[in-house]
């Protein structure tokens, strides 16, 4: 057992959203990685990213499973309250997709013969909407998310106007599938398992994946406030090392079945993960937890995300911001390398 005698705080509370990529946190607890590094961690399931951000900002949680853009948004105070945050560990890569209702998907299937050709999919989608003379309602979850940026980026590339051609709305992940099945919305861009579940329930068809649109990109991070990181440096180190071990465990294909069993436990994803057992998606979302430099929260990736925020008009005066400096302050690759490199 590694000796870490100077851990300042042994009992921690971390928040998570019940999505597949919270896996490293679940694994760190269930497989004893937290314990191995001298930590006792309580994991709290949350229903919204807004709630996670509040509870971390106001110190009710020590840290949380966060969308990669969240610590940047909190540091810049984009949603109101300015709380400088940092992340020293990327939890996962990719795992997002755009799913369409069964009806629109069938209409599209008649026009598309090469599903790897993004341009063809986009052109056909536009042509279909034009023919139906219909403005579909497409949902995303949270404004400071890859899902939101990916969808906007993809639509822009296809010259589909987010006001004229479609209607963008926000819907929580847990209600996406029901709304798609009931025809309240016509499609969504969301993280796993909600795209696979649409396929399993035959409520929708997969249009494209985040990986197809952007290539490999960071998806979730382990975020803490800058003040917390300063106050508890040894605890932070133990936490990052424990969760990094769990990322590696989660990535190992040999652990796939056990991982799904752990996620299916009632306090975690419960039935939403249970439903994935025995299902092999025909599309790879390229969702990964470790490998190469995946776990480094890199400055370049931060700058890329800030540019997406700017493209979505979330940053009021971009000329006043130094993206490199902001990204370097928030994405602490240096800490990861010092502790896990």
């Amino acid at each position: 057992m590694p000796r870490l005698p100077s851990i300042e705080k042994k009992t921690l509370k971390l928040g998570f959203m019940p999505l597949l990529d919270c896996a490293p946190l679940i694994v760190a607890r269930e497989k004893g990685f937290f314990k191995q590094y001298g930590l006792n961690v309580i994991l709290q399931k949350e229903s919204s990213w807004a709630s996670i951000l509040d509870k971390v900002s106001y110190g009710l949680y020590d840290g949380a499973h966060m969308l990669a853009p969240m610590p940047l948004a909190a540091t810049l105070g984009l949603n109101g309250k300015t709380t400088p945050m940092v992340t020293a560990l990327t939890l996962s890569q990719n795992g997002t997709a755009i799913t369409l209702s069964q009806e629109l998907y069938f209409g599209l299937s008649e026009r598309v013969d090469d599903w790897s050709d993004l341009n063809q999919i986009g052109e056909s989608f536009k042509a279909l909407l034009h023919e139906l003379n219909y403005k579909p309602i497409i949902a995303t979850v949270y404004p400071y998310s890859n899902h939101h940026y990916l969808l906007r980026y993809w639509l822009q590339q296809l010259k589909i106007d987010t006001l004229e051609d479609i209607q963008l709305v926000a819907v929580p992940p847990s209600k996406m599938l029901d709304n798609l099945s009931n025809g309240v919305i016509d499609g969504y861009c969301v993280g796993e398992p909600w795209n696979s579940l649409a396929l399993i329930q035959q409520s929708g068809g997969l249009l494209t994946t985040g990986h197809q649109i952007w290539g490999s990109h960071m998806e979730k991070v382990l975020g803490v406030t800058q003040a917390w990181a300063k106050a508890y440096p040894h605890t932070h180190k133990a936490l990052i090392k424990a969760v990094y071990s769990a990322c590696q465990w989660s990535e190992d294909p040999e652990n796939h079945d056990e991982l799904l069993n752990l996620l299916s436990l009632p306090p975690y994803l419960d039935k939403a993960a249970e439903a994935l057992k025995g299902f092999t998606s025909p599309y790879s979302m390229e969702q990964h937890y470790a490998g190469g430099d995946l776990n480094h929260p890199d400055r370049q990736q931060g700058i890329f995300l800030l540019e997406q925020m700017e493209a979505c008009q979330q940053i009021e005066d971009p000329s006043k911001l130094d993206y490199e400096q902001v990204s370097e302050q928030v994405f602490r690759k240096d800490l990861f390398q010092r502790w896990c490199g």
Partner: protein
Amino acid sequence: MSYTNSLNVLLIDDEPDRIKALKEALHKLGHHVICHLPDTSELNQHVAETHPDIVIIDMDSPDRDTLESMATMSQNNPRPIVFFAEQQNDQRTMVDAINAGVSAYIADGLQADRVKAIMATAVAHFEAHASLREELEKTKTQLSDRKIIEKAKGMLMSHQGCDENQAYQTLRKLAMDRGQKLPDVATSVVEVLNLTNGLKRQ
């Protein structure tokens, strides 16, 4: 209270008793209250149509992220909703609100003290409701139901390393997520965790 002080308050909560009591209290303060429960699938449209000055929403509601999204789309909204904390530095007020399970969104330019008064009322009602519910739970549940809930709580506490209140919140959340009754959820928690502990021992 004069007409000009009256605010449009939108309440989003799926606890019928709590929302009713809070609505009455806010009416007494002279506010116009629009309730919205429990199905919020058309929240986007609803907010756009009712132009609330303030939205009070259960901290645990997944619809919070919908409100956050709408706030960023506010250029097109006549009454943009911004996050409450922007207006003031009152850390304690916010922590109390979070602990009570209250979150709020307000229209731009609203005076902080008016918001505070509404928040205080909401926090008081949420807290009162929590203790009332605990009492009710104790008297209402049948002995066997109570036993299985206690057992599930105990198993969750040792499995999750959490305290009794957190274990109870986990059960409640599961019941809400699955649309099941508490004793049913407790039964399945006991089954699943029994199975897991069995596997771990092997």
